[in-house]
């Protein structure tokens, strides 16, 4: 049985800055297996790696978050998807939740505490 820290996590975002920020927070929390992708297509192509958790950015070129979401869910309905966005737009978040995202994370609020809270609510 894998410990939860060994689980595979995907960070899908076209901003390298944000990728670094989030991966640092997660690795500080102890996660070891973090994969980074720049767009939705790359993420989908690698779903066979079976991530337990996907941090999905909303606005990207080549398949944005909302488009990729159903595909991720259909591949494995157990995968948890957390929607990341810097749009303080409730509508986007709601659409994401409807499409099967479990949570959403505002980039400006990305802290260890916030991420921990999200992870707790998922498990």
């Amino acid at each position, binding site marked *: 049985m894998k410990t939860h820290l060994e689980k595979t996590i995907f960070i899908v975002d*076209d*901003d*390298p*800055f*944000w990728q*670094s*920020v989030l991966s*640092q*927070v997660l690795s*500080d929390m102890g996660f070891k297996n973090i994969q980074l992708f720049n767009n939705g297509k790359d993420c989908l192509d690698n779903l066979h790696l079976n991530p337990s958790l996907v941090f999905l950015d909303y*606005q990207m070129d080549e398949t944005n978050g909302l488009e990729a979401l159903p595909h991720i869910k259909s591949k494995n309905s157990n995968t948890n998807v957390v929607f990341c966005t*810097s*749009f303080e737009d409730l509508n986007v978040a709601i659409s994401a939740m409807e499409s099967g995202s479990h949570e959403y994370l505002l*980039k*400006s609020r*990305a*802290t*260890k505490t916030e991420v921990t809270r999200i992870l707790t609510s998922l498990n």
Partner: protein
Amino acid sequence: MISFNFEQFNDIFPFYMLIGKDLKITALGKSLKKLYPEILHQSFPEIFQVKIPVPAKEQSADIFKLTHQMVILNYTEDPLFDLRGQFEVISASEQLLFIGTPWFKSIEELTEKSLTIHDFANHDPSFDLLHSLKNQETISQDLKKVLETLKKQKNELKKASKEIEETALFPLQNPDPLVRIDTHGSILLANPSASKLISYTYKNRHYPHKEFWKTISKELQLNEEKQSFEIEADGKVYSFIVIPIIENNYFNIYGRDITPSVDADLALKKEVELQNILIDISSKYINIELEHVDQAIQKSLEALGEFVQADRAYIFDYDFSNETTSNTFEWCRAGIRPEIDQLQQIPLAYFPQWVEKHAKGEPFYIPDVSLLPDEGPDSLRGILEPQGVKSLITLPMIRNHKLIGFIGFDAVLKTHEFEEKERKLLFLFTQMILNITERKDSERHLKIQEEKYRNIITNMNLGILEVDNHENILYANKRFCEMAGYSLKELHGGKATDLLLEKKGHQLLEEKRNLRNQGISDNFEISVKNKAGEKKWWFVSGSPNYNDDGELIGSLGIHLDITSQKELEKELIQAKEDAEASTRAKELFLANMSHEIRTPMNAITGMINQLRKTVLDSDQTFYLNTINSAADNLLIIINDILDLSKIEAGKLSLEEIGFEPHHVLTRVMQVMGHKAEEKGIKFTNSTFDSQISNVLIGDPYRLNQILLNLISNAIKFTEKGNVDITFELISEQDDIQNIKIGISDTGIGMEEEFVKNLFKKFHQEDSSITRKFGGTGLGMSICKELVELMGGKITVSSVKNQGTSVFVLLPLLKGKAENLPTTKPNTVDTSILKDKLILVTDDNDMNRLVASTILSNYGAKILEADNGIKAIDQVEKFPVDLILMDIQMPMLDGLKATKIIRQKEITEIPIIALTAFALKGDDVKFLDQGMNDYLAKPFDEYQLLETTCKWLDNDLRNDKDKAESINKKLPDSTEKLYDLEKLKALSPGNKLFQQKMIDLFKTLSSSSMQEIKDAYKSSNREQIKKIAHRMKPSISSLGITSIQQDIRKLEEGNMSDENIQKSINKIDKVIEEVNQELEHIQL
């Protein structure tokens, strides 16, 4: 014995029906059940009808008897549903079994019932048969389509074929022979006209047509574009053109009948001859030298005359001013008598029809003179017959729509019909003659003009200089040489600049050369030195010089010596400056005078007022009143003098306010009334025109002054009798009323001589009067000046010892009640002065005393300074509330001091200028220098209080403060450029992470900025939005708050292009700064 279980049976017969003895349906196959479950337990005969076999007369047939045959049942609830099958009796259970299958006509019916293959037993062929049926349908539809397509194609083919036929007919119908031969001469195609030709004659040899084509084919080349040859065939001449068609290896040959006719030949010959003559003549005339024109014309007349077989050819000029015509050129055939000498100045009246025809541009043609009416020696016939003319033709010469002459040809020996062709030729000849004479005339004209201009240039008073592109002199006329002092030889080839100019002039000419190069002409003055070394001033009009091809070859200059004018100009300038200086001097004097005089006056009146406020006994009061009255008088005199000076300097300004003329009159009468009474004379107002407007616009104070002056004079010089004043309306135009005010007295009057000089300054009839009557003698001249300033006129009439009348005519605008000035509140709220600290700056202690005393009476505290420097000092030391600043002070005058105070950022203290100047336009000067207001000296108590209280008023000052604080820039908030706290919080203590993030930010932000700028350049708003969105989080993480709003705006993407540019620039700048700082950061 085969037995099936239930399932098997259903599989095999899914549409079975089991009917009980009672005719009720007891069981259904699964598919039938699926279709119509309601059938179960129904009575069979009630819901089913047997279609086949066709029921017999007796309706109620026993269905149990319907075995061993095919049956078709119809379900009455659904008339479209039939079942086909057979009945079997199950004897054991006494039941009737129907086994069958739905009988559909088409597969659609099947699917309508939502049946699928599944519902049918596998062995049941009905499904496949329906499918097969469908297929056949489709195939036959398909075939139908094929047939249609075929039909269409057949029709198109028919059409195309018909078109080709028609097209093919075309060459067949051609009357010219058309042949197509291959390279060996075999005839591929030939049209009927070609086929008709049997024998060909080519190059004087005969060929039968087949042989001919074979022969000719040898001479033809496929690769030559066009070839041609001529043959004779069947008595006709043909010209053939050969067009080779390389790709198909054959020749298309097109023939043309070129058989000439005998007559045609001849006519052709003559045409050719005609053309030749014309060409000959015209070529001669085109290039002819003008001297040879006459000779050439003569020769042409001869050639033409011969050609048209005339005996005489001539040219005449029309002279319409004299109404005559004269013969200018004549040619006669040998043996024919010339008539030119007799044919001069023939009156046109002799042959009006001739002239008329010519005037219309038509030729005048007489085929036979003998056929003309015989009307005597002056008729046409009478003139022509003696000349022996039998036929004639004349053609008009019209140039520029004017008839200038004619050309004519006579036949003398016998009559001659001038054919069409001949007439044409003659007409053309006429045109040519016209042309050549016109050229001759214009050349002559040109020569004359040239002469004229040459003379002008040579003899004029302007110097002409022609230079090339490098200022080398090409030509100079006589006058220029004189002006320059050099001979033409000395000038020619030299440089104008070198010879005549000093260095400054070189530069100017350089500029001018540039202008010429651009094709610009202009005028300018230049200083030169002539050969003798004398300095001269020239006025030059320069223009670029072009050759006939439009190329710039230099410039032309026309020069005029203006040395003497320049001298004059200098003198005039000097004079003007002197005059101005003198005026300025006068002004200064005036101002000074004003100040010097008013200052002590101010003190006197001020002190008088103060004294009055103290307790006085009756003696003191009397003395005081005397002093007061003397001071008043003095003030009047001073004011008069100053007024005059002001008027002279043009510095007196008149009011333009509404006033009531009636009121003015009443006041004047009040003031002067008792003076008259004192002298025992009557003072009346006999007339006041009711038509005069109630309100007029003008200067009531000055009007008052004038009236007082005149009335006082009248009273002064009248011992007995009366003084009368009248107001009349003379006339009215639009808004202006012309008022005439008359002041008449019964006084001593004036001599005529005196009247003349009345308005001169300082003039009184005799000096004794001055002493007797007092006065400076300025009054009248001031009145005159004032009246004239008002646009009016003043006139005097007087008779010695009888009296005087003075009339003042004034044009005044009509006013309305609104124009009247509102009465000023007479009281000033002086409470504001209490405990205020006021700085009084004036070099004169008297003036200071006056101001201080008044102000301290109302509770103000006073500081004094006697010059600007001390004033500044005081302001810096003490919290002054208001400054009174005298303007003219030693050491540092008031204006400069104010400027310095303002420069020290002391903007809230009001500074009031004290000035005796108050000339027109000075107030602006004060306000410009930082003053808030000004008081004219001598000011009275009321004016001083009013002004100081106004400026001390808290509200005013507060508003000013507010206004100023608004204008002051907001101090830049102590905003940090960026903040790493947030970043540090993400992974506390992790310096590596922080450095990495910082590096990342630097790279990303620079590249993103570049992307945004590129996107902006290519107007890609979507891209800008995307990049801005991307940058937002990192900017937020680094706490770069100053641009967060801008990034957000860019992300929204609703700004104008201008604002986008601004935001981009701002963000760019801030990020650069941040990155630079991050460069040097120590974590």
